[in-house]
């Protein structure tokens, strides 16, 4: 039933979010700033001394809980979206963003918040933005897709072009996965909103071809790296890369989260968000009950590493509340 698959989308995103290596970096934001400064110094130490022992997020006089496997930025932004969606649709979406203070966010979102503060309204707030192409809106679109809503107005606050298309594609795929549980139909729904002459549309088709040829998500990892990642730019959260990876890996895994997410996490440059998007899609296909219990237990409680107000919130409750509000709204 769809409630189980909506929960699956939320929990699946959190599993992927936690599985990628950057989760520990984000979660260490809960530590004292000097602790992260030492991390940066250890990184420089390895370089200076030519030692191959690289630092990992660590806890010197700091709590260790943030460094255990757990959800980070993407799960929090998904929860924030679910909590702030205006189901009646009579409130301009930018207003929810204007209420944000003291947050950590992607470059696209940070720039959009600056734009809003200067009076630059959507869609310019998302367009006049050096990271308009990133997948911040695609992550948020999981909430819209879960309840079959259009994510465009939300996406345009922080993104443009491929960034907005990525959000539409994720929402379309998740909506179809929630409705039917069929990954093939979810992928088709995403492709239907991705024009082939855009980077994201081209990459989605190329990624699907590569993964189909490999036949298995893990087997597809090197081919996906070759087809999608140029390794030129300093950041790797482009929707034109991460959304196609999510589509290709979820399909190659037959919608099984346990096969799709680990493969996404192997693509180190995109491990901040590609596993999360992959997990959302696979989680929606397979439903909440198909996700291993140990993972659910580890990822359902938000840390507040980006949105401090969400510390301690239960992501599954957030998903359930959204579903029940929707049902009440329809009734």
């Amino acid at each position, binding site marked *: 039933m769809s409630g189980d698959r909506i929960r699956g989308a939320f929990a699946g995103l959190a599993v992927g979010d936690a599985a990628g290596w950057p989760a520990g970096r984000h979660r260490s934001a809960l530590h004292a700033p000097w602790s992260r400064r030492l991390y940066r110094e250890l990184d420089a130490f390895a370089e200076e001394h030519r030692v191959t022992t690289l630092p990992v997020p660590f806890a010197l006089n700091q709590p260790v809980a943030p460094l255990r496997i757990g959800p980070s930025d993407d799960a929090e932004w998904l929860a924030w979206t679910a909590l702030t969606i205006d189901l009646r649709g009579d409130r301009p979406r930018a207003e929810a963003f204007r209420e944000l203070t003291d947050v950590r966010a992607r470059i696209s979102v940070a*720039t959009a918040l600056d734009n809003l503060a200067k009076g630059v309204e959507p869609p310019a707030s998302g*367009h006049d933005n050096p*990271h308009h192409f990133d997948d911040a809106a695609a992550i948020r679109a999981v909430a819209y897709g879960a309840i079959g809503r259009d994510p465009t107005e939300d996406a345009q606050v922080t993104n443009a072009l491929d960034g907005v298309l990525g959000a539409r594609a994720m929402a379309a795929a998740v909506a179809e996965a929630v409705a039917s549980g069929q990954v093939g139909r979810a992928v088709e729904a995403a492709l239907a909103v991705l024009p082939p002459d*855009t980077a994201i549309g*081209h990459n989605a088709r190329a990624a699907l071809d590569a993964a189909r040829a490999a036949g298995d998500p893990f087997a597809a990892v090197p081919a996906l790296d070759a087809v999608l990642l140029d*390794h030129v730019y*300093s950041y790797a959260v482009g929707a034109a890369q991460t959304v196609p990876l999510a589509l290709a890996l979820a399909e190659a895994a037959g919608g099984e989260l346990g096969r799709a997410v680990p493969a996404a996490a192997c693509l180190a440059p995109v491990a901040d968000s590609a596993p999360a998007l992959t997990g959302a899609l696979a989680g929606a296909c397979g439903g909440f009950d198909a996700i291993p219990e140990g993972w659910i237990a580890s990822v359902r409680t938000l840390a507040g590493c980006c949105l401090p107000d969400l510390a301690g919130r239960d992501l599954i409750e957030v998903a359930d509340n959204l579903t029940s509000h929707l049902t009440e709204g329809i009734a």
Partner: protein
Amino acid sequence: MRDRARGCLLGLAAGDALGAPAENLTPVEIRRRWGRLTEIEGGGTDDTEYAIFAASMLVRRGHGLTSHDVERAYRTEIIPRATGPMRGAGFSELGTVEALRRGLEPPLTGLVHQHGWSDGLAMRAAPYGIFCPGDPAEAARLVEQDGLVSGSGEGIAGGRAVAGAVAAAMAGAEPRDVVQAALSVIPADSWTARNVVRVCEVLAAGGPRGRGEEAVEALHEAVVVRHYPWTDIAPEAVALALAAFLAGDGDVEESVTFGVSLGRDADTIGAIAGAVAGASQGEAGVPARWAARIGPVTGKCLPVVAGRHVLDTADELVEGL
């Protein structure tokens, strides 16, 4: 026309060289180190070499230049010699080379990497303006053929704006009309156009003290992206360069030194301001002490142009008119 062409590319090379040591510094740090940076310390960078490369394509193909000609030039003249590090190239050039190596064709080569809005096209757009004096629309159409290989969206708009501005300056337009020409060839609903309008408003509000520290601060506040570590954003660099040209009232030295004092992508801002002002004033408008520092390029960024001089490039462009 030959005089304006020579002034344009000499101004570009001088602005590039003057701005190189100030690249990515804050205006405060620039003032601390130099006061006003007015003397060229070393050589130019990618701006000059890519402009010479763009001119060489124009000389060969003229108004018939297409993005496929440009793609072919990348494949035959840049990629075979880019075996090690591509010195001086920005993300957009490297991303384009990787896209070409993966077998993609324009416009996808400019779309698939994430620096479509790079100022890499704007920095080399001046030759297109030289080639179309008094015809900003044609200059913009031609530079877009170049831009479709390595950029998209705002990167192409930035290139169009600079080519259009130079085309107008080549025909002797007043500074204000030069900036209007830039705006006339890009969509009003673009980041670049909005930023150009913003800097014009800042300068108009600043009055006669429009070139001091307050103006620098106000221009930064108007168009500089705060939460982003790279500075090669065309909507920002093009707006700041046109602001410098306006603040200097078209004078080469005033425009370029003010542009460089803004920091950020200072060499590209200096190069664009110098190109537009140089086209406006002609060769004699470029300070002789700067001109004396401009020799043949070394090819450190683009080996294929090693040994070429911007003045010879300007002459060749004019012969093709």
